[in-house]
């Protein structure tokens, strides 16, 4: 048995995550952690606070990647019904995509990033089992993707303030739904909580 001390690879849990310290197995392991950024422009409003969320998304992606994790951007094909809900912010999408420099871009055929896309295979190939989920449409693509990931056995953390809602009155419930029954779809946390967890690892010298 090879001796790979967990302290070198792992950083403890995200303090401040609800309803339990994430991840459930007790240690954030950067190389098995992926950021899933839902970036379907149909779900982006572009309010000032939304731009702050975009900045957090970029911060998260830099941190996750520099620690050896995977950054995935998920976009979508036009909805099957042909309905377009919002003004598509293609230009914004391009800017965020450029700033994030995702390792992988996948295109899904529905609100769930897993539908009609190679997302599951990409994550399994990279041995990513823990997922940070965020992006545009907290009550839409972010929730659908989180739900699909949870059923597939991935351990998910919804980064609430790096996610934006089309209908802000639904944001609270969207968070509550995740936390219900001890974390039925995983846990939720703020970007600063996640960055702090990665930062602790850096101070410990565990990120090369």
């Amino acid at each position, binding site marked *: 048995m090879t001796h790979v001390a967990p302290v070198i690879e792992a950083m403890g849990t995200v303090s401040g995550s609800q309803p339990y310290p994430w991840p*459930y197995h007790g240690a954030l392991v950067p190389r098995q952690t992926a950021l899933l950024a839902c970036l379907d422009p149909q779900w982006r409003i572009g309010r000032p606070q939304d731009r702050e969320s975009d900045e957090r998304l970029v911060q998260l992606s830099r941190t996750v990647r520099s620690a050896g994790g995977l950054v995935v951007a998920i976009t979508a094909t036009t909805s099957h019904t042909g309905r377009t809900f919002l003004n598509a912010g293609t230009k914004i999408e391009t800017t965020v995509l450029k700033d994030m420099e995702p390792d992988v871009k996948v295109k899904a055929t*529905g609100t769930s990033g897993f539908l009609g896309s190679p997302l599951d295979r990409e994550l399994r190939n990279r041995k990513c089992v823990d997922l940070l989920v965020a992006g545009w449409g907290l009550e839409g693509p972010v929730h659908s993707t989180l*739900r*699909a990931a949870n*059923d*597939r056995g991935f351990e998910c953390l919804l980064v609430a303030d790096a996610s934006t809602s*089309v209908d802000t009155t*639904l944001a609270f419930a969207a968070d*509550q739904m995740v936390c*219900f029954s001890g974390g039925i779809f995983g846990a939720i946390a703020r970007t600063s909580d996640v960055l702090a967890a990665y930062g602790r690892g850096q101070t410990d010298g565990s990120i090369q």
Partner: protein
Amino acid sequence: MTNQTSSGRAQVEAMPYIWPFDGVLQPETTALILIDWQVDFCGPGGYVDRMGYDLSLTRAGLAPTARVLAAFRNWGGTVIHTREGHRPDLSDCPPNKLWRSKQIGAGIGDAGPTGRILVRGEPGWEIVPEVAPIDGEIIVDKPGKGAFYATDLDLMLRLAGTTHIVFTGITTDVCVHTTMRDANDMGYECLLLTDCTGATDPGNYEAALKMVTMQGGVFGAIAHSEAFLNVIASPVGSLAP
């Protein structure tokens, strides 16, 4: 309540649009999916009941669902029941799901008031008698919240010629929503019956309904069961081409 299009077809008074969008509601292409009406979630003596939770929240939709089920059978549509549960050796249970269940004192596979919790074949996993399947109806056993992942549901719907799905079941924000989102993503035209579903948290129930109706019906539409019954139980509905 019945809305007739110029072609004489019947549609349901739903929110946020008259359902279905294509105006074609007929038994040959419509399925009724009843999600997880299992003893442990809504039956007397089941897990939720024995733990002292308010059983009325998950049972609220049972009586209207039974009425819809009877009318739907008579109408001639495809009836599909789902059950959440795992294999006895739990080889299909993700470790984080198992961990969470133990954390809240309801460990999957542990002995409960009606057999091993969430394990296939146990009394608590059975569907309650009020809406129990009859011979010829499809039953889908699912390991997760969504009824499509790791099941043959989509295959059976396609083979049955189903393009439209009406949902009932528990709980609204978890298993019903996950399944309806997937169904919508896959191109099925979906309707959720508001009084035939329930959640353990009233706020989550309300928000889940609102999420369906946002942006012109991003996941489909919602309607009271009476509006649906008015159509499938009416002469126009039963004579639909």
